[in-house]
């Protein structure tokens, strides 16, 4: 009986380890923590993702283009 219980415990432990150990509570906490704050100032700029689209809009508005380029992702730190 004891051996059977131990085997079952080991089986349950193995299933838990295989499935990952993140809990729902950790998920909720991280889900809130790992996202940008609302209303970031740089997001208020009406960014284009194409230079040609930017050039067309700049021509229309008679303004220069401000181009921001990162070697990584312009959405992030770069």
């Amino acid at each position, binding site marked *: 009986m004891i051996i059977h219980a131990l085997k079952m415990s080991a089986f349950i432990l193995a299933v838990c*380890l295989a499935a990952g150990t993140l809990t729902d509570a950790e998920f909720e906490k*991280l889900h809130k923590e*790992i*996202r940008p704050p609302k209303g970031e100032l740089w997001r208020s700029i009406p960014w284009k*993702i194409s*230079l040609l689209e930017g050039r067309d809009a700049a021509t229309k508005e008679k303004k220069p*283009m*401000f181009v921001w380029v990162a070697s990584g992702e*312009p959405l992030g*730190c770069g």
Partner: protein
Amino acid sequence: MGVAHNGRGALKDEEGELCRKIVDQSRSDSLQGLFVVNTAGDVLENLLEFDPKQTKRMLEKALREFKPGGARKGEGGRRDTKLDLPEGVVVMDVYAKVLGGYGPPRSKEGSPRYELEKAWQNGLGRDHLWIRKDEAEALVKGVLPESLTQRIVRYHLVDNSRGTPLWWKEGEVRKVEMTLSHGRLTGVVHCETSGGDRGYQADLLGFVTAKDGKLTRVDVIAKGEFWGKAIYSDRYSIEGGGPKGKYPLAIAISLADANDNLYRLQPDVLRATSDYLR
């Protein structure tokens, strides 16, 4: 007019030509940095660093001295579409955050450098993940396609909070177990280079729901230990360098807002591989 830009200098069309024209005038011989450009593609100002005061001065000067003219209308021609958002693709936001492991900021408290150092240490890595139409349809039916699993692991479970990330090669994915059952995604991942100098071991938990044949929620969190360096990943945390040894890294993946003006911005890795959507 602001243009956020990534990897378009390699495009073989008018967009690529304009990029290369700007690069030829750049102070760094690359397209990295901040530029003020007129509609003819002439660089009026160029900053390599992202210093707020210098950026403000640059923009004010450019607006003061800018004279409209020299506009060049697009000449059309064949567009290179390799960075375009494909039809039916579902876009996800991906955020990465280092949860600890940095030493205290080394700069003098209250100085701009101190604030910058703190900002780097607390910054988010951001990227987009693309889910193919057929993969999205499979998710709606409660099936997690292997192609999507591999894409998530190889190209998005990386520390891109600073510098330029290095993505995982096929052989560096040592273990992946991801299961989607009744809308609940669970998993474990172990990626590591052959020399062991860079790796990530993480657990995953997520939730997938759908209604009327469309995904209404896809939220996945990966949390584990990351180690090793990417390109420039030490340089950007100022005095202290990157976190030392193994450090906690969490990554969040969620459905992106289709109304976001940066929604169509491609995943970072797309500039480096043509196999992304395979």
